[in-house]
């Protein structure tokens, strides 16, 4: 089922939780609403679910406007952050609940429950238990089964993984994605975790202050951030972003980073950089270091090293600037060591003083 949000707004008193949102979610697509807490992503989800009513704007399911349709009539399944299993019912009754409300026959309900239980790989032995007796992962599967059992057209997931421990989160991440692809169900997932968003979504809508900052594939958001917010939000460790100035000396144009050091780029780049004050961004993996002194490299001092296992995150001080760089884990460095830094100029991002990307 295609979903279209058209100038969708939701105000709570003076707070604009969702502000003129426009977004299309295609049939069968897995879309992630990503953003920091309070950005309006959950409100958007609840608007789609029908639990909130829009202040203005429209919500379309297919070609129909559903603004005033009750949640029960929208053909949606939903999984909540706390799973929201009914504590007074056992697992079987929880999963069967949507079906009993549809007044299906007992045998039909039983058949559908057993089918969905198998589908989400839930142990049949657990059916008699109460939700309180289940582990987080099992509760998650029950919640998924309950959301999917009535065969909804749309699946809504509100931070479904945030209550799981790290290991289980990886497992469920893969599994939810797999289920979604198998069913081909239009799915919207809300999360604040950009790794989750990157790994699960076909597309990501990144939100801030009730507005969408950027919509695109994970690759687009990572490699072509449209503004400073996206650049800073996507990626872990985050992108290095510096207040910079463009200048010219005997050797030609340069970018002066935080009044600390100069970077030189091919001439053609400067043709696009019209303003004097810009922001320069570069991801840690595009900052490489060398232990050998070199004239065209910038020298810095290792501030602190953070081993990540597969690699090491180096924090290097250059003048006033603290720079993050990813290095192979076999590099032997400790605080105070002197290193030489190389910026991969092909991967530098430029933003104007308002934070918008300057296309090169």
């Amino acid at each position, binding site marked *: *089922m295609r979903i279209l949000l058209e100038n969708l707004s939701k105000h*709570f008193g003076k707070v604009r939780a969702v502000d003129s949102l426009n977004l299309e979610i295609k049939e069968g697509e897995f879309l992630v609403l990503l953003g920091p807490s309070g950005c309006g992503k959950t409100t958007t989800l*609840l608007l789609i679910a*029908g*639990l*909130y*009513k829009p202040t203005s704007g429209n919500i379309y*399911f*297919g070609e*129909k*406007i*559903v*603004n*005033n*349709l*009750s*949640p029960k*009539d*929208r*053909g949606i399944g939903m999984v909540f952050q706390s799973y929201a299993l009914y504590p007074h019912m056992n697992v079987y009754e929880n999963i069967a609940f949507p079906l009993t409300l549809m007044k299906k026959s007992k045998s039909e309900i039983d058949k559908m429950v057993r089918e969905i239980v198998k589908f989400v790989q839930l142990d049949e032995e657990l059916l008699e238990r109460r939700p309180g007796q289940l582990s987080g992962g099992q509760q998650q599967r029950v919640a998924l089964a309950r959301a999917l059992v*009535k*065969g*909804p*057209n749309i699946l809504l997931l509100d931070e479904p993984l945030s209550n799981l421990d790290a290991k289980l989160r990886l497992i469920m991440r893969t599994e939810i994605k797999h289920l979604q692809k198998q069913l081909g169900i239009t799915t919207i997932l809300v999360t604040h975790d950009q790794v989750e968003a990157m790994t699960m979504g076909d597309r990501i809508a990144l939100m801030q202050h009730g507005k969408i900052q950027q919509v695109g594939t994970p690759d687009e958001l990572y490699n072509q951030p449209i503004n400073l917010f996206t650049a800073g939000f996507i990626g872990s460790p985050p992108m290095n972003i510096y207040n910079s100035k463009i200048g010219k000396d005997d050797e030609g144009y340069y970018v002066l980073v935080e009044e600390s050091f100069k970077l030189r780029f091919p001439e053609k780049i400067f043709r696009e950089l019209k303003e004097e004050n810009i922001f320069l961004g570069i991801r840690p993996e595009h900052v490489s270091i060398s232990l050998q002194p070199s004239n065209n490299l910038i020298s810095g001092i290792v501030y602190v090293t953070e081993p990540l296992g597969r690699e090491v995150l180096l924090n290097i001080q250059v003048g006033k600037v603290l720079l993050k760089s990813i290095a192979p884990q076999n590099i032997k460095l400790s605080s105070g060591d002197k290193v030489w830094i190389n910026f991969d100029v092909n991967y530098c991002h430029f933003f104007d003083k308002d934070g918008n990307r300057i296309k090169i």
Partner: protein
Amino acid sequence: MMLKIKDGGNPRPKKINWNLLFFLAPAIILIIIFFFVPVFLTFLMSFTNMSTATGLTGFKIIGFKNYLQILKSQWTLKILKNTLFYVFTTLSLFNVGTALFLAIFSTHISENAGKFVRTLWLLPRITPSVVYATLWTWFTAEAPYGVLNQFLSPLGISSRNWLMSTPWVFIILINGFVGASFGMLIFTSAIKNIPPDYIMAAQVDGASTFQTIRKVILPMIRWPILFVTTYQTLSLLTSFEYILLTTDGGPGFYTTEVWALYAYHNALSNYYGNTLFGFGAALSVFLVILGIIFSIIYLRVFNFRALISEPKIEV
């Protein structure tokens, strides 16, 4: 597997919200009939001479005569004094004083002993008032029946009916033993809610148990103390059930008559059979106004905004 989606395009026309009616109508109707209407009637009746003799239809509007009569009556001052004495003494000695003592004491002895004390002191509150009053009338009765006389006669104190000879002492005891439990429970839960870190810190700093109570616990429960004090003031001002059941305002003329009882006697049960609804209503008006003032103060003290968070579902 496609579910059919019903059409929800046009906004629903404004109609009666049956849900809301179902959830709220019973409560609102009862509150109107038995709170609002009686308040209104009390005010109206206070300007009439309505009584058993006039019935509900034959009364006349007499303006402020009832109020003038209250002002001129030789008993008004006596009853006012009684009321203030009763409220102040019971409140300070029992509803706050004993309550505080019981709460502190029962939280500083073993858990089980503390529970026992509190359970026992809650007994008067849950005992039917009639039974409770009987216990005290017997306790204070003349020799050879009264328990108190049995205890006191070996000390050479002559036997008497204590309730009749020292009525105020026992009115205060009777109400106080019931009243203490309210504050006791509130204070106990407040004390138990003090984070243990504070008490441990005081212990580490070398404070004795008494010092800890005085310097840590008491200051931390000052809000509950203020709450119980004001709340119980209002309760005592308007309560008269136990007095009615024991001395009934006596012995003699209005010895232990308090304002609320006086209003009740005049309006609903006097010795002459002709009950004065109008005059009783005028007496009640004073209590009603006090009640309204106190209640509005509570609304301010209760942090109203914190109590009402917006609903998260709008269907």
